[in-house]
């Protein structure tokens, strides 16, 4: 293990908004990070004491929770899904906004009364959130774990409902689904490994503070 602080950033939807945030906090990845042809997964930054890795959003949380990376940026959907005890989320970055919702086919929604549910079958990338949400209201959720294209599940009979991220609602509409309940609002967070937060406080403390100030400057 090197002494370098590893910063994990997610591939995909949050990354474009996260990079300016990183820059404001004084961390800029090397040029090859932006090169789509580059197959490297680990990159240097303008700070010799900080390296960057680019991984799937769900893996950002896992890398940081295990202390393999010390810092990361990830959506609150992923944090809630895992509920890792070793993960701090000390800064709401106020980017990557969307919501995690229950959706079902439009014609089903016409006759459906959520108050009468006792058991639901749900296709989702978020079995943890889904189970907890339904359990809290006394409904048993049987989850079918999918990694994408959840919207297909109800039309093809894999499940009656889905739990997924919704931003504009266009994907749902195009697939004949309608949002029936919002589980929670989602935004991207700065996450920190719990042990690293204590043992590397001299380096990590100022980075966390820099992100706080970057967010304040953005919202001011």
């Amino acid at each position, binding site marked *: 293990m090197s002494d370098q602080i590893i910063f994990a950033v997610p591939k995909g939807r949050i990354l474009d908004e996260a990079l300016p945030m990183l820059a404001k906090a004084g961390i800029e990845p090397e040029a090859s990070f932006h090169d789509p042809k580059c197959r490297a997964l680990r990159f240097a930054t303008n700070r010799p004491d900080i390296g960057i890795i680019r991984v799937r959003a769900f893996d950002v949380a896992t890398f940081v*929770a*295990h*202390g393999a990376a010390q810092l990361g940026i990830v959506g*609150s959907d992923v*944090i809630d899904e895992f509920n*890792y*005890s*070793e*993960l*701090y*989320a*000390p*800064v*709401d970055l106020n980017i990557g906004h969307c919501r995690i919702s229950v959706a079902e086919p439009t014609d089903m929604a016409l006759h459906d009364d959520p108050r009468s549910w006792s058991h639901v079958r749900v296709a989702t990338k978020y079995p943890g959130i889904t189970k907890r949400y339904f359990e809290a209201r006394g409904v048993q959720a049987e989850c079918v774990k999918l990694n994408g294209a959840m919207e297909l599940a109800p039309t093809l009979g894999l499940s009656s409902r889905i739990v997924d991220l919704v931003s504009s609602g266009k994907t749902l509409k195009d697939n004949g689904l309608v949002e029936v309940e919002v589980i929670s609002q989602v*935004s991207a*967070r700065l996450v*920190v490994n*719990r*042990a690293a*937060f*204590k*043992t590397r*406080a*001299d380096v990590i*403390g100022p980075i966390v503070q820099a992100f*706080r100030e970057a967010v304040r400057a953005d919202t001011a």
Partner: protein
Amino acid sequence: MTNALLPTGFRDRLPPEADASARLVRIILDAVAGYGYERVQPPLAEFEATLTAGLHVSGRDLLRFVDPASGETMAVRSDMTGQIGRIATNRMGHHPRPVRLSYGGPVVKLKAGQLRPEREMMQVGAELIGADSVAAVAEIINAAIDGLRQAGVTGLTLDLNMPDVIDLLAIGPLPVDDVALLKARLDAKDVAAVPNAYAPLIEAAGPVAAAIGKLRAFDVQGLLADRLARIEAIVALLPSDITITLDPTERHGFEYQSWLGFSLYSPLATGEIGRGGTYFNGAEPAVGFSAFIDPLIDAGLARGDRRRLFLPVGTTAAVAAQYRADGWVTVAALTEEDTAQAQICTHILTDGKAVPIKKD
């Protein structure tokens, strides 16, 4: 079952790790014995009712079974602290206070997660029952640091916590609807889900001097003044060559602690290697610490040097005894075919001398 598969979270310790485990327990217990802590040995399992009363855990989190002898439910301990409290209250209730006790032994968790997959762990620690003053807390932390350092732990970071601070604020100047939910969110430093009034507590966490300063600025009503002064006094009594941080809202499964909690970290391990704090053992104030030996074994501590001397067939018992008296481990060849290499020896007795074996 022929392939020797063990249940999830259980493992065999082989040489030299098994020896390292015993040695680490011994080193830490000897260190705290130097501060007056005497060892007690509670049983591995007890009646569930007795065990949960002292442990502040729910029986649902314990490995339970019905005792065929009494018909009562028994449980395997998941933490020895509660058992020590029970002994202090009952068997040693008549001893003058404070009582200083130490302990070491295996504990079993019912479930394990991805982050902490092990279900059996070796716990060692010390409890001071009858006081939770600045002097008592400093003694326990110093004993813990001393023990861990003698075990070979380097680069220690001590994180101090204020377990009752949220209760104080919530019943006082910053009322909230659901204190348990707030505590859980503060524990995750989930700043977006915490009321703004509590956010400064998250921002305050960090190196102790700066954190105390930030908390004093936050604490306009002086509600925390006494606690902060006590923490400052404790820090003054600790070694100056360790890193000390203060995180007022950290909790992490120590709901029963009273005014002070702490955790110890080292770069040798990814998680904490020791934790402790003040609590009430019944009505008595108390303070203690526990260390978990397994991460230290995995870090390669206390392996000892393997000075194994191979004694060819025919070496006399007297010669062998002399080498052992000089600190050697002697491994006797029982057959002519046996070799020093097969017995992983470092030396071989040749012409009355211990000759090092060349490595290939």
